[in-house]
């Protein structure tokens, strides 16, 4: 059976006054039905641009998807025109963004904003859409949902706004929910509420989830498979347990080592990754992590490694085997 979503060699660039920004550089991945996939990386690694490309939300210009395919149930989304894409966005694939305040319209009531896709996409009448909306607000845990229908976004707290965003994303029962750092702006106790909510909803509705974050902790309890991105490339992927227990890419390894843990005191200095992420305006010919890598060998600065399988469902893009320190 074909996977639900198959992204193939996706390459996205931005033309700016300073030059071409190589934001996403030929990434491929699949998402199976009902699966939870985590995409991890630091700011500027291309994780958001990669899913915005999938959703057809890259502003053109300056952005441009120069190569690749995004196959949703076998259909290439990149070939669809705007109108056809409207039927996919929100209905088949929905997205929740990082900042719930800027993604909600401040001058429309919450109820109106949620019921709109119901009316537009599903052709519901006003009354039916109203009932559904209240239902959705209850489902995402907003107290007194019926009363809050007429409230405006500023009358909700940050956590409640994110719930509204999730309600809106769920409105048309999509088969994929893409969450782009949905908890980054929230406090930990509220983050825990949202994570639990998405987990519950996924169990109930059986939708697939792509969760994008820089927080390796959040992903640990949420995703089944993880993709690690660096400078627009996928550098490692595999089952979440394998990645955390045996990171095979020096970047993943260093990232995990630099994290302090709330459940223990190590007493040691934190491991650091020296230097800065590369400038996406001009990537070096070799591995983009080479200048910061402690395992670097000569080949790394000349040739960029591609993802190679290193075990069952496990791939890594590195010339060096970090377990033996050999090429």
């Amino acid at each position, binding site marked *: 059976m074909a996977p639900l979503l198959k992204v193939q060699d996706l390459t996205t660039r931005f033309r700016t006054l300073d030059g071409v920004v190589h934001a996403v550089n030929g990434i491929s991945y699949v998402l199976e039905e009902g699966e939870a996939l985590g995409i991890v990386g*630091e*700011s500027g690694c291309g994780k958001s641009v990669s899913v915005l490309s999938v959703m057809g939300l890259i502003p053109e210009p300056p952005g441009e998807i120069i190569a690749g395919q995004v196959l949703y149930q076998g259909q290439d989304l990149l070939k669809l025109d705007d109108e056809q894409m409207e039927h996919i966005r929100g209905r088949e694939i929905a997205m929740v963004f990082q900042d719930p305040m800027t993604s909600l319209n401040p001058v429309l009531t919450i109820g109106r904003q949620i019921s709109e896709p119901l009316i537009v996409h599903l052709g519901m009448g006003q009354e039916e859409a109203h009932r559904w909306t209240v239902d959705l607000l209850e489902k995402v845990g907003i*107290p007194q949902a019926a009363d809050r229908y007429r409230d405006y976004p500023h009358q909700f*707290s940050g*956590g*409640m706004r994110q719930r509204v965003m999730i309600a809106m994303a769920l409105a048309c029962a999509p088969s994929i929910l893409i969450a782009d750092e949905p908890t980054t702006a929230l*406090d*930990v*106790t*509220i*983050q*825990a*509420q949202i*994570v*639990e909510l998405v987990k519950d909803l996924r169990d109930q509705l059986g939708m697939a989830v792509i969760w994008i974050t*820089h*927080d*390796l*902790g*959040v992903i*640990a*309890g949420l995703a089944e498979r993880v993709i690690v991105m660096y400078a627009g490339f996928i550098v490692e992927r595999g089952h*979440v*347990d394998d990645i*955390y227990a045996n990171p095979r890419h020096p970047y993943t390894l*260093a*990232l*995990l080592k*630099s*994290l*302090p*843990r*709330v*459940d223990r*005191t*190590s007493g040691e*200095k*934190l*491991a*650091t*990754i*020296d230097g*800065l*992420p590369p400038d996406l305006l001009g990537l070096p010919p070799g591995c983009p992590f080479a200048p910061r890598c402690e395992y670097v060998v000569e080949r790394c600065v000349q040739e960029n490694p591609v993802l190679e399988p290193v075990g069952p469902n496990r791939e890594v893009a590195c010339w060096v085997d970090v377990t033996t320190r050999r090429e």
Partner: protein
Amino acid sequence: MSSNGVLVQVKGLKKHFPITRGILVQRQVGAVKAVDGVTFDIYRGETLGLVGESGCGKTTAGRTILQLYRPTAGQVTFDGTDLSTLKGEDLRRMRQRMQMIFQDPYASLNSRWTISRIIGEPLRVHKLASGQEQIERVQELLRIVRLNPRFVNRYPHEFSGGQRQRIGVARALASNPEFIICDEPISALDVSIQAQVVNLLEELQEQFGLTYLFIAHDLSMVRHICTRVAVMYLGQIVELAEKDELYDHPVHPYTQALLSAVPVPDPPLERKRKRVVLEGDVPSPVDPPPGCRFSTRCPVAEEMCSEEEPPWRDVGGGHFVACHKN
């Protein structure tokens, strides 16, 4: 005065911001009780962590300790001197010994000033160095925070977030302070850069014998860097203990919920962990609930919790908690 090693003593500190109505005649109609009676000591050479969620008053507490806001009530004693009685030149002289590192390395550096002027500012204000001596001192400070001393004539926009935070650290060190308040110094930085700045702060503490008040919401990092930790909720401190004691045996239900909400980068463990998920949001500090402020969200609250304020008591070994129940 400071024989027991206490450098900063905070007693019953309150900071209320008035809410006013009216255009010509301003009437006070209420107050945001940002900090509402906090008491703690900071020992020489330690790092005291102050944690809590956004809006709990931790930043206001930090600023009030430094007298950047004048307290509504309460006392802050620094090395035996009551800061709230000091004014003008006396206060300025005291301020030399206490500095602050801010959260946002983009907003806290003047973008029209060169690095030399930014770091040299405290030297100028406190008349510590001028001319060639000042330039040399700035270069030395840049070396201390591991930046290239030749960067002196550059502007903040030419630096990355992590480098800017180093500039902020260099500025804080310029007047040779004993005490530095670090207000969320790493939360604006990327994961791989956070560790660099935290390690720098630790090294500087060792090198110069600094005392830190480390304000943060990242509980994992606080456990790493701090000696003792105080947990704030809605303007008050609910629990304070040595860090391992607090993280391994939290007593207050809020601390328990807060700690259980922090995810751990360990998938099998993370799937098994039991979470205390709190209902609802933090109440407004304008009109905090009576009795225990956490009683409206507390999973174990009883009737008395919403009637009587819980006493601040020692549960053994310098572990303090304000709770009727545990």
